[in-house]
């Protein structure tokens, strides 16, 4: 059985993942968002590492390293470069304002606890108790996608969803297969790179990177 200390660490890290998602809703400064993201990546890597140590699973250890590298360092770094190219950019006018967003996040957390009841019933155990945190992260990330206008905020939302999925996977099955996790991380990396290119050219064309303005391309 897991020791209490290990469980505590995992619980803390999972809590940080969700807290990061909520923070992402709260802060408007894009740079703050990126630091939140890198914190989340680190927490996720911690979860993986603790599980790896406990199970003595080398593969999981590699995954932890990859997660730390990709989600904790490389992706936030790339995003930071996008933001640096457009200094002073803030999520000025989200479609849903911050207080309303936070209330919605609270509702989403409740919903995910309700829903996850079925999931946890499948694998009862101390870790699966934490699965609702991952699910809530997914929902909040999706909510960020829906309500934030800047392209960088959107990618942050996407990454939140991804992190949430990864967390759920770690908690429920003690690790996604190495290959899958690698693939997913690479995918996200690719998205970020594409975004960087797109954002650069969008700024060159329209002078801003506000996705909502893309509506003009319709019809």
């Amino acid at each position, binding site marked *: 059985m897991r020791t209490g200390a290990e469980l505590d660490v995992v619980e803390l890290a999972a809590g940080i993942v969700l807290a990061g998602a909520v923070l992402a809703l709260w802060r408007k400064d894009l740079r703050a968002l990126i630091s939140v993201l890198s914190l989340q990546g680190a927490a996720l890597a911690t979860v993986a590492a603790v599980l790896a140590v406990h199970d003595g699973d080398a593969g999981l250890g590699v995954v932890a390293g990859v997660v730390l590298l990709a989600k904790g360092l490389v992706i936030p770094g790339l995003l930071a470069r996008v933001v640096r190219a457009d200094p002073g950019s803030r999520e000025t006018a989200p479609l849903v304002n911050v207080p309303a967003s936070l209330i919605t996040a609270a509702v*989403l957390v409740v919903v995910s606890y309700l*829903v996850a009841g079925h999931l946890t019933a499948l694998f009862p155990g101390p870790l699966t108790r934490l699965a609702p945190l991952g699910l809530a992260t997914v929902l909040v990330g999706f909510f960020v996608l*829906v309500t934030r*206008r800047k392209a960088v905020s959107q990618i942050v939302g996407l990454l939140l969803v991804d992190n949430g999925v990864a967390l759920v996977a770690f908690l429920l099955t003690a690790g996604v297969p190495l290959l899958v996790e690698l693939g997913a991380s690479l995918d996200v990396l690719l998205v970020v790179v594409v975004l960087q290119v797109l954002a650069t050219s969008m700024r060159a064309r329209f002078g801003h990177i506000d996705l*909502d303005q*893309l509506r003009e391309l*319709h019809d």
Partner: protein
Amino acid sequence: MSTAAYLIGLGIASAAALLGAVLPARRRLLGAAVLSSAACLAALAGAGDVLVSGHAFSLHTAQVLPLTGVDLSLDPLGAIFVVTTAVVGLAVSCYSVGYGAHQTPSRTATAMLPAFLTTLLLVPAAASLATFMVAWELMALASLLALLTEHRRRRETRDAAQWYAVMTHIGAAAILLGLVLLAAHAGGQSFAAIAAHRRHLSVPLASVVFLLTLFGFASKAGAVPLHVWLPRAHPEAPSPVSALMSGAMVNLGIYGILRVGEDLLGGGELWWWLVVAALGVVSAVFGALHAAASTDTKRLLAYSTVDNIGLVLIGVGAAGALAAGGEQALAGLVLLAALFHLVNHALFKGCLFLGAGAVQHAAGTRDLDRLGGIARKMPATAVLFGIGALSISALPGLNGFASEWLLLEGLLHGFASHSAVTEAALLAGVATLAITGGLTATAFVKALGVGFLGQPRSEGAGDAREVGPSMLAGMGLLAGGCVVLGVVPGVVLPALDRATTAGLAAGAPRAVLPGLGLALASVRGAIDPALLVGGLLVGIVVIWGALRLVPRSADLRSPRRAAAWGCGRELQTARMEITATSFAEPLQRVFADVLRPDHDLEVTHTAESRYFPEAISFHQRVDDAIERVVYRPVMAAVTWWGRLARRVPNGSVHRYLAFGFAALVLVLVVLA
């Protein structure tokens, strides 16, 4: 033997479709026509054998369709439809050689005709749900493509194709739904399994299945109010295709009703068949009225198809009702008459459509108001079209008379049944037969009189030339069939008798006595058209001879020739002749409530006084009232709904994401 012949027929027909698509331009017309004629002959042999021997064949192969395999089985009921299709198909194949000769048809055109024919031959033999639906859908597709092969760029043609596609697919969906429902509760998808299980079905379920399939089959048969595609599709399709559609495809709607209602569901409730008969009454009257009012030859023929299918539906409905009341003998008689009329309709309507196509081919128009004088330019076509027109008007000595006489006899004898409702339905049927008889005669007096007699009303009609021998042969085959079945109907009655027995769930005793004429077995009643025609011929010869022999006065010996009396006018132009529109005008006035003609009268006065008109222009259109009242509002509602829905996606990424998000949360909440 019959299995092999039938399968060979199907094979050759598909080969014809293939050849029509791949052969070089010069050969493909002839190649496809020869092969499809051969296919028709083979299928005729196979199905004919089933009819003569009375033994059904069936086979199953696991290969062609994945999961279910293909089940084919041809019983006498299906065989009657295969035979009819094969005869019309033979004539059409022959005709298509001449029809396509002066302008080489496209690959699609030469390929689609045999393909359509193949599916038509296939449907009556399908013996499982999967096979049936595949064949049915293939038929719908092939006919749609065949319809589009000529003038596909014209707006009317595209319109017609759209109407047809929508109607036929709604129908197919209803059939599929009904049959799947049936199969799910009958424990099997082969027809034999369903039929074996029919006693265990609950009545409400069976009724739902019947109504669903009736909807689908009635839309294929062109019963009012599902007929709207007919008057659009038939005029716009190439004539061989309209002949096949009207002569063979609509029949399969009747086949479906019989197959599901009697065979699979075992006859069912009385009210089912009263619904069928009611559909028939409405279709017959509505179709006949519109046929009498139409001025476009092929539109007239299309409406007349609605009329005749209505008569068949009356027969089928009455037979079902009588059978549900336990009157097997009478039910057999009425169903026999209905099937006989169906066969006859295929013959004369095929002939008429081919004739109309020949006229359109030669004169460049099918508008009766622009035709005229065709009889002098195209005497052979005129005679063949005339035979078709007289047959459909049910003149004695031709096949229309034979089947309508039988139907009338059956309906009248049915009054002996013990159900008051059935009697009322039969009475309605008799009245319908009477009124449509008159209206049909009007319609075809118009078609013949205005279209073929008098002076040409347009340059095209004036320059018309007789069509080639292959087209005449195609029409002649069907017209010959009309005459043969009219004079000696007895030759096909035994076969029809077998089909009738197979068509009724509880079977039926023999309805007619063997012989060349029509003699009823179960009730009193007989007529021998051969005697009638023979007597007429003898009478004519006797009178003619007597006139030659009797001494005559000087005046009679040297008769004076004078011009026809035209009220003393010195000038006779085509514009002074009666037109199809004016011929139909009185009827249109009488039935204005049903036909709802649209008038458009514009009078320009001279500048000096309003009492002196300078020019008067008058336009009149007779649209389908059902289309206006039933279909237009539905279409308007759908369009409105579509407009509304278009506002939802406005191009905002966030809105699309929000939809996804909302859906996700909703699903989660519902799950939780």
